[in-house]
Every structure is written in structure tokens, then in C-alpha cells.
């Protein structure tokens, strides 16, 4: 199988990249001022040398860097991501606990932004000279130019505080202990604001890109051929223009999907969404090295998975690629 071979190769490459990322981040984090022991001690409001020494010893921070790195890397080889200094839990547990929330948020936002973006973009492309087309593009431009966190704040103000339609934060109603369908609906309700806020910016990107790409595709000779066949405009738009225009969007979407994890940091903070974006920010502030490295590892892995996935989709969408492999 071409695919199997391809995926195997990509995975091998991914392992190398991930290894480098671990090493890079490991040293990067060491450059940050302060260490987890000092911060934990600082939070306690009182400290002495013995306390710090005790913590550093416990965390293994008293050992030379290369030994720490070796421990860390060899740990990861056995899927042991170490222990969070601050949360007193295995990093893997913490991340796996938070990862689904982030995947749900970014996944929803991704699908939402892609679907709406392509839809709005093709509408705008079909209405190039009309006012409705210009309005779509103007809106896309405004969304593109608006700071994400600002939209988030405004959305909370409007929909949670003034209108009281949607919950302002969190992933589910605390204490309600819903199960089954009720739980799913509850989560869905909490998901609406953060997912649409996060989606807005990316939707704007896809809208602009789809339109540009479609207008470019509509200049191609095969479109003229299609018209010469007597095909209806609608069919031409969909079957000939849009399909070809989607190729660059797939590439872009693959890149963006990975970046969404980063964008989620802001969204998760404003909406108190219990995902790894937020966890990352906290881990950074706490100098929780193991946790931070673990999150970097996972988000990089996510990016790589997205990239491989994009490649596969691209291959499905564009028959020309198969030949090259």
C-alpha cells in the first residue's frame, strides 16, 4: 500500500521532529528565570533553604541538566512523561484529562470555520460584483482584523451577561451531574460561545482564501470548457471551480488546524475551558517543566498528525499527487 508506506515514513519523520522538539524545549525552558521549587515555595508564603532543597531533590532538579534530559527522554520512550511538580499528578494523566476538551473545542471550531468559511467564500466569489459579495468580504475582513480575545469578551458580555442565553464559561454545569443526552446537550451549550469565537477568525481566513482561490480557478481554461459544454453556472461553480479551489485551502487548513491549539490558549482562558491551552499557560507560569514539556510534545504531535492527515486528504482530493509518490 502506498498509503501505509507513506504513513510509516511520515511517522518516522515525526518521531525525529518530536525528539528535536523535546530537546529544544527542554533547554528553552531552562532559560526561564526561577524554578518550580522556588515558585512553589513562593506561593506558600514562607520558605527556607531546607524546604527548597527538599523540593529540588524531589523533582530531580538537583542533577546536572544532561542527566535530567536523559531521564526525561528515556521516560518518554516508555510513554512516561514524568510527574507534574505543581499538580502532584502524572503529566500524562493531566494531559489526557484535558486533551479531549481542547480537541472538542478546536475540532468544532475547525469544522465550523472551514464549513462556514468555504460557504461564505464561495458565495462571495459567485457574487463578485454584487453588494452581497462585498458585504461578506467586508465582514470577513473585520473579523480577521479583530483581536480574538476582544471578540470573546464581547460575546460573553452580550450573550451571557445581557441576554443570558448561554453559559459564560466552563465546559458543563457544575454540580448538575448530567448524564447521557442531557450531558451532551449541556456540553454543547457551553461549547457554542468558545467554539464560535475561536472559529470566527479562522472562518474569516477561509472565506478570503476560498474567494480568492475560486476567482483564480474560474479563470482557468477548463471552466471555459465547462461553459462550452452548456453546463449551468451553478454546476460549474461547484464541480469545476470549487473543487479545484479547495486544493490550496486544504493545505492552509492543515497548517491552521495545528495553530488552533495555540489560538485556543486565549479562548480557553476567557471561557474557562478546561483544555491544554490553558494548562500550558499555567504550567509555564508555574515553571512546571515536565507538564509544559508534555504539553509541547502533545501539541507538536497534534500538528504533525494534522499535517499527515492533510497530506492524505490532499492525496484523495488531487489525483495528480499519487503519481508523484
Amino acid at each position, binding site marked *: 500500500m502506498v498509503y501505509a508506506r507513506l504513513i510509516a515514513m511520515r511517522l518516522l519523520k515525526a518521531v525525529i521532529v518530536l525528539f528535536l522538539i523535546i530537546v529544544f524545549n527542554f533547554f528553552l525552558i531552562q532559560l526561564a528565570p*526561577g524554578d518550580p521549587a522556588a515558585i512553589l515555595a513562593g506561593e*506558600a508564603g514562607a520558605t*527556607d533553604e531546607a524546604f*527548597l532543597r527538599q523540593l529540588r531533590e524531589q523533582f530531580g532538579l538537583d542533577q546536572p541538566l544532561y542527566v535530567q534530559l536523559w531521564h526525561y527522554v528515556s521516560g518518554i520512550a516508555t510513554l512516561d512523561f514524568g510527574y507534574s511538580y505543581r499538580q502532584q499528578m502524572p503529566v500524562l494523566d493531566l494531559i489526557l484529562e*484535558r486533551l479531549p476538551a481542547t480537541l472538542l473545542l478546536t475540532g468544532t471550531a475547525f469544522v465550523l470555520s472551514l464549513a462556514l468559511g468555504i460557504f461564505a467564500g464561495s458565495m462571495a466569489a459567485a457574487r463578485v460584483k454584487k453588494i452581497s459579495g462585498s458585504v461578506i468580504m467586508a465582514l470577513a475582513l473585520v473579523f480577521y482584523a479583530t483581536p480574538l480575545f476582544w471578540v470573546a469578551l464581547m460575546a460573553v458580555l452580550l450573550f451571557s*451577561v445581557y441576554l443570558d442565553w448561554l453559559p459564560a464559561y466552563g465546559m458543563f454545569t457544575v454540580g448538575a451531574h448530567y448524564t447521557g443526552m442531557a450531558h451532551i446537550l449541556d456540553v454543547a451549550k457551553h461549547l457554542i460561545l468558545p467554539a464560535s469565537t475561536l472559529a470566527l477568525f479562522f472562518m474569516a481566513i477561509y472565506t478570503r482564501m476560498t474567494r480568492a482561490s475560486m476567482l483564480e480557478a474560474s479563470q482557468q481554461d477548463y471552466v471555459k470548457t465547462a461553459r462550452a459544454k452548456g453546463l449551468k453556472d451553478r454546476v460549474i461553480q461547484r464541480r469545476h471551480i470549487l473543487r479545484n479551489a479547495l486544493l490550496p485551502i486544504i493545505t492552509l487548513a492543515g497548517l491552521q488546524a495545528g495553530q488552533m491549539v495555540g489560538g485556543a490558549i486565549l479562548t480557553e482562558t476567557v471561557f474557562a475551558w478546561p483544555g491544554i491551552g490553558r494548562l500550558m499557560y499555567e504550567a509555564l507560569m508555574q515553571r512546571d517543566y515536565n507538564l509544559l514539556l508534555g504539553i509541547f510534545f502533545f501539541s507538536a504531535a497534534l500538528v504533525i498528525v494534522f499535517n499527515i492527515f492533510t497530506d492524505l486528504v490532499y492525496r484523495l482530493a488531487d489525483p495528480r499527487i499519487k503519481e508523484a509518490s
Partner: protein
Amino acid sequence: MKAPLACAVAACGLATLPAMADPQPGGVIDTIIQPEPPGLVLGMIQNAPTRTVAGNIYEGLLRYDTDLNPIPQLAESWEESDDGLTYTFHLRKGVTWHDGEPFTAEDVVFSADVFHRDLNPSARAVLQHVESIEATDDHTVVFTLKQPFGPFLLSFEAGTFTMVPKHIYEGTEFRDNEANNQPVGTGPFKFENWDRGTVIELVKNEDYYEEGLPYLDGVNWHIIPDGASRAVAYENGTVDVLPYGTVENFDVPRLAEMENTCMTQEGHEYFSPFAMLWMNNREGPTADKRFRQAVMYAMDREFARDVLWNGLGNVPLSAFGSNAKFQNEDLEPYDHDPEKARELLDEMGYDGEEVTLLPLPYGETWTRWAEAVKQNLSEVGINVRTEATDVGGWNQRLGEWDYDLAFTYLYQYGDPALGISRTYLSSNIEKGSPWNNVEGYENERVDELFNEAATAYPEAKREALYHEVQEILHEDVPVGWLLELGFPTIYRCNIKNLVTSGVGVNDGFKDAWIEK
């Protein structure tokens, strides 16, 4: 102890009277914890959020009322020998741990002598005065001190001297103990569930030893990382209690004006947080006493209190806060007087050398405050550069004395020997901690006075010594005294009895009840 109970019985009999003061059992309170605590085993972790949540799970031997008088908790009564060297605690009988095991004097000895000596730096500071700890029977513990230690009785609050179960921890590697994920205390609430990043749920301890308590069925501590979202959570009714520090100060007046909303500053007497400006006494312009005095004159502390802290809190006279014992009230206040500040700077010949200012990385109010102080200082001609740091950076910079000016706030723990002297004693100059004598102030007389006062007996003798030390400090200005902070707790007015002690909501839910 019988009076309230009798009252309750009486109220039950008089059903026709409005049940004004009648505690009604039942209900769950939703509140907020910020930031998310690193763990809940108090004694192992003394962070503020851990204290706040776990203060309801764990208990100490004593509690303190809002005047910081000791009141019974796990110790029913106590005696102090005349020489101030022996303290005998009589423990309450019939107390069980959440797992059903009985609580005994052995647990007290284990907690104090083994657990805290190993893990808890603030307990260690007290234990250095202690010669021995003995359980004379199952319900009596005797502490013998090396020398008298004035504030000894103030050290038995749940957060500092937590009682931990011996049967779970003895002989184990404390920090790696599996039980850390399921904390077991003696308190009114039991640990139920912790959804990391979302909520910590505590439920009523049905077997609690105080009859009828707690009234509440449980407490949910929500975790909401964004300040604005926390305010919204109160506004839309998701949470009913906002402990201090959970909303930004700017939100306080708006929230306090909401319907059915009460606010109290009580419950922080034990900590009595004191905001200070570290000034590096070692080098640069800040090494000059006149410069430090100029800083005091240049700062508009009333403005900061009124604008940034909603008028809450107290502009301090000197090193001792108004809540602290032994305050010397005869000292001349450092008023906002830019002219005088400029004169002092001229006199010392300040040449405009740049000084760095580290704000406290604990949220917007502190950032704003640093901006205001910087502006105050630059208006008298001091050239300030703010250097933003996160908590890690701030800790490191202070721990390595790499700063000129830096914001901080310190707890006073009810007694100068616990909370104040640590800032000025030269023996407390040591790199690596942001909580000791970070400014590098050295004055032999001050050292003498503080050391003498800590072990002097009785109180009157201590007072004289402390008044003298305040005079010296007032002149030397080793640090800038900014504000005794007023920390507001905001809550729905139908929640009664929320703050009943000097540590506020850290152990407050025990007595709280909801009026239906």
C-alpha cells in the same frame, strides 16, 4: 458550648416566631478558588488556595476569632504555665478522621514533630522554639519550649499546624503517598471530587463531631482562570461567594452594589496582609536613607487605596500594622509631599540614576499600582524603569536581590515575632527566598530589640521593646510601607455566618448556612 445548642432547641419550640437567627440546614454553596491549588494536603502545601479549600477539610488545634483570641477547635481547652515554657492541650473526645479512624494525641505528636518538621517551613520556624512534644494520654498533648515564645499560641491555626492522620502517613514517603489525592482530615467537609481545571467538590461530613454542624450539604469550588469571567459567574448566579482575590478590585464596587449582596473585610485579621515596597538597601540610590524617605514622601498612598483598593485598607504609619499588636501610634506619618521628596533628593545629590521597579505579578491591581507609583516617583524626578516579571521571574529576582524597588505583600500572622521581625532581622538575610530580609537591612540595635521582644515575658515588656524598634525603622525606612490591605469577601446576603474567624473563609463554611 451549650448555649447555641440550647438556643436552637428553644427556637424549635417556638415555631411561630420568625426564624431570623435560626440556622437552616441544607443547601450547597458555589464559590470560587483562584488560582487552582496545586494539591489539597494542607501541611504539605501551604499555598493560599490550598489553605482556602483544605481549611474546610483539615483542622488545627485552635481557631482564632476576629480579634485573634484563640478559640477551641480540636483542642477543647489548654493551659499555659506561668513561666511561659509549657503548654498543655486537652483534645476533644470522639473525633474521627474522615476514614473513620479515631483522632488521638498520637496524631498531634506525629503531625507536629514528624510531618511538619519535615515538610513545613512555617511550622519549622515555630518548632525551633520547641524542646519537646509529648502525648501524656490519648487526649492530652504537652509542648515544652526552650524559652518563652510570645506568639506561641497563635501558631495552631489549621493552615500552619494542620493535623494530619498518623495512620496514613507514618512510615511513608509523604509526598508520594497515594492518599494525597484523597485528603483525609477531621474537618466539617470531606473531599468528594476534583475535576482538574473545573471544580473541586466538598461534601458534608455527616459524622462531624460538633452537633448539627455543618449546616451545608457541600461546597463547590469553581476554577475560572479569567477575572472577568469570575465576576460574570457571580453576576449570573453561578457562584454565591467570592473569596478575596477572586475578582479584580475594579469589579468590587459594582458587585457589592448588586441586589442581595453583602461584603465583609473580616476574616483576614490573622494574616493581616501588609503591602510593602522592597527597597534594596545594599547599592544604588536606594542604599541612601534619604532616597528611601523621599520615596515615602513621593508616593500618594491614599490615592492608591481609594482608587485601586476601593478605599479598603489602611495607610500604615510604619512597620507595624494597625491590626498588629504593639503598634506605636506616636510616629509622624509620611504624608504625600512631593516637595519634601524633591528636597531630600537634592540633599543627597541624586543624579537621575535609573532604578528598576518590579511590580507584583498577581493581577491587574498590582500592575496598576506599580504604574501609579512609577508615575509618583517620576514626578519628583526619580528615573524609574518597570521590569515586568512573571511569578518565577519575580521570585528569582528577589531571591537574588536583583532589583531596586519591588512590590510585595506579607502576612503578619497576628504577632510581630511571627510576621514582622522576619523582614528586618539581619540574621534573616539569605539569598533564595523572597520572604525574608530581602532588602538587606542591617541594624544591630534592631536585631537586639526584635530578638529580645520575641522571648520577653510578659506582654508589657514586649510592648516597650517593640515601640523602640518602630522608631528606628520609621527613621531608616528599610522598606516602603504601602498599605494594610483590606480583602473583601463578597457573598449573597442570605448566606449567614460565613465569616466567623480570623482566617475568614479558610474555615468559614463550617458555621455558614443559607436562609431560604
